[in-house]
């Protein structure tokens, strides 16, 4: 995938002596220290990141951490003190006024926390705002704006005034306004923070759909971790103007970089974030036609579990074969043993959604997009992942192992 937005060493300093403050910040001084010495506020402190095409990049942080400043630097509503912003390979920081207007009109649109709709204009006129600035004829811009309104489900409200709409609907108009110009990038500064929780969740789902349909790259600001986890392909945690950690949602939750991030994620329901694919363990399956009884027994003995998945010769999952089943009935042919049914799940399903698959207490097979076996997840592993949150990976692995030897002895009894 291609990098849509690349930001390099971005600084924004508010205040009288920006040069001095930048120097101090560059030398690694804390935001408070810099303020004491220069009265300058380091709102964005040496931030570098890149956003891939058609991804949602979420920036999360407490109030005052510089999120709004950062996102406004991207379209230069706030002029960065130094650093580079490169979009599709072109340096936005070097653009002249008219070039910058052109970028804002067609390439990058913005959605605001308090909607920022014009109260004296109809919903349709609001949605057509960017197109009007671009100088499109009334008919053209109304056609396009109408399509955007229909995409957010507000076609019937075109002639209403914003004040006649609920908050959620107003923000939909805000989104339609930004989509009408078919921008490649959406900048969203806490777009759902002013909405109540139910509507907020609805809007999040809708945004994911719209992003797919319109193929936009999104930079999304929020201070709500759950929103970040739900929407983000990548999440950046921001503090005092700098990024503390950048990574996929799961890494933020399972592997917080420091106490600040840990404090953020401690209340998260890990079961909703951790995916089956991420905890699946690779095992060597029993393959029909290639293995005989002896090699099957050997494989099971070496496996951490007392059972292994069985594949047919073409790699298709046939089921689960336990050591007990293998021991039964003298020495039948491997092919004639009927494996137990095995539960399967795609890789990106969360533990929360996969719970019911563990009802029988047996391992579950995780399949990749092509339906091939990617690994298996033991019920034990699920529990240790959910409980031993802060324990390092190695320890967890150790904790699992003793469980394996006990299984055969149980069978033998």
């Amino acid at each position: 995938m291609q990098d849509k937005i690349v930001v390099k060493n971005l600084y924004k300093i508010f205040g009288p002596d920006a040069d001095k403050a930048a120097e101090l910040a560059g030398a690694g001084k804390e935001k408070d220290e810099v303020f004491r010495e220069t009265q300058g506020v380091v709102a964005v402190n040496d931030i570098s990141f890149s956003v891939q095409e058609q991804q949602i990049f979420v920036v999360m942080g407490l109030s005052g951490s510089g999120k709004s400043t950062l996102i406004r630097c991207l379209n230069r509503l706030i002029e960065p003190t130094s650093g580079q912003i490169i979009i599709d390979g072109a340096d936005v920081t070097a653009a002249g006024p008219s070039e910058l207007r052109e970028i804002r009109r067609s390439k990058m649109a913005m959605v605001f926390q308090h909607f920022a709709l014009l109260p004296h204009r109809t919903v349709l006129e609001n949605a057509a705002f960017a197109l009007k600035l671009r100088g499109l004829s009334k008919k053209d811009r109304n056609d396009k704006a109408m399509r955007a309104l229909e995409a957010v489900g507000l076609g019937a409200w075109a002639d209403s005034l914003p004040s006649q709409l609920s908050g959620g609907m107003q923000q939909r108009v805000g989104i339609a306004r930004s989509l009408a110009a078919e921008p490649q990038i959406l900048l969203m500064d806490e777009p759902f923070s002013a909405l109540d929780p139910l509507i907020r969740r609805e809007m999040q789902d809708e945004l994911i759909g719209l992003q797919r349909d319109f193929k936009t790259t999104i930079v999304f600001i929020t201070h709500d971790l759950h929103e970040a986890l739900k929407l983000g392909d990548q999440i950046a945690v921001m503090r005092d103007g700098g990024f503390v950690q950048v990574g996929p949602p799961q890494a933020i939750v399972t592997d917080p970089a420091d106490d600040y991030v840990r404090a953020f994620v401690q209340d998260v329901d890990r079961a909703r974030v951790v995916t089956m694919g991420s905890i699946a363990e690779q095992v060597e399956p029993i393959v029909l036609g290639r293995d005989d009884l002896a090699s099957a027994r050997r494989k099971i003995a070496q496996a951490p579990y007392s059972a292994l998945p069985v594949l047919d010769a073409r790699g298709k999952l046939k089921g689960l074969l336990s050591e007990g089943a293998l021991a039964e009935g003298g020495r039948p042919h491997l092919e004639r043993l009927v494996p137990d049914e095995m539960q399967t799940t795609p890789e990106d399903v969360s533990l929360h959604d996969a719970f019911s698959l563990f009802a029988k207490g047996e391992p579950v097979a995780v399949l990749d997009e092509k339906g091939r076996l990617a690994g298996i997840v033991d019920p034990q592993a699920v529990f240790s992942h959910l409980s031993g949150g802060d324990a390092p990976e190695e320890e967890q692995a150790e904790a699992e192992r003793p469980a394996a030897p006990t299984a055969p002895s149980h069978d033998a009894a």
Partner: protein
Amino acid sequence: MSGFLDLFRPSTYGKLPLDDGVEWFVKDWLVPNFRPAFRAIQAPVDALLDSIDGFLQAVPFPIFWLVAAILAWRIAGRGVGILTAVSLLLIDMVGIWEETMTTLAMVITAVAFCAVAGVPLGILAARSDRFAGGLRPVLDIMQTIPTFVYLVPIVMLFGVGMVPGVIATIVFALPPVIRLTNLGIRQVQGEMVEAGYAFGATRRQVLIEIEIPLAMRTIMAGLNQTLMLALSMVVIAALIGAGGLGLTVYTGLGRLDVGRAFLGGFGIVLLAIILDRVTQAMGAPTPAQANGWTFRGVARSLLGGRGQKAEAAAGQ
């Protein structure tokens, strides 16, 4: 004892000739050097005043009465419509119709010039803190200096008559529209202006599409105050030769004719009430704003597009 303390009194040692200085400044420098410039200001005021006055005097009473009452009704609701109709009847019945029309022409002229000069100045002040800082003391002086003080230089520069009267009125009534335009534009939410720029608007587009429409209520409130100040100047303007209701009051005063003076005052008060109610309704977010501040929107609200809304709002 007092002789001793007088040693510490500046006037013991002489007098600072401030009055002479001002006299020299106005009479020997301002007037001769800038008379052409001031004449140039005078011309458009004269032209506008003449045509408005001529028009108002030419319109037959019944037609003016009907149009004014309907306008007031459409803009500000039924109550104000009836008030206007009754007031205009009274004004004609007591015999001060012509004077009222002259005063109305003066006030409209003054307010028109205040709007043309004041709104742009207010916008400039909103855009530049330095300009606003420089402008504020000037506005403070304009509002606090007693009117009589600047009547003298105005007479020197413009002579006496209707036009100098209107110019004095403009000077006196200008500050509120500047102040409130400035305030209104500064009060427009940052996010709104940001939205404009974020979608690629130029400064001009932000001003026209966002700032002015959102500041409209406050600007209209400023114009309303300007209008009221202009009305309060009509008697003083009569001192330097302006006509109308002010002259009625002034002559009544000169002849100790209580009845006449009262008539003038009566006309001014009725005119003030009508204009106040109507312009306030124009500033409220009712009919015109509901239909948008476009020509069509205003026309629609005048012709009845969303009249019920206007009445509902007026009834509140």
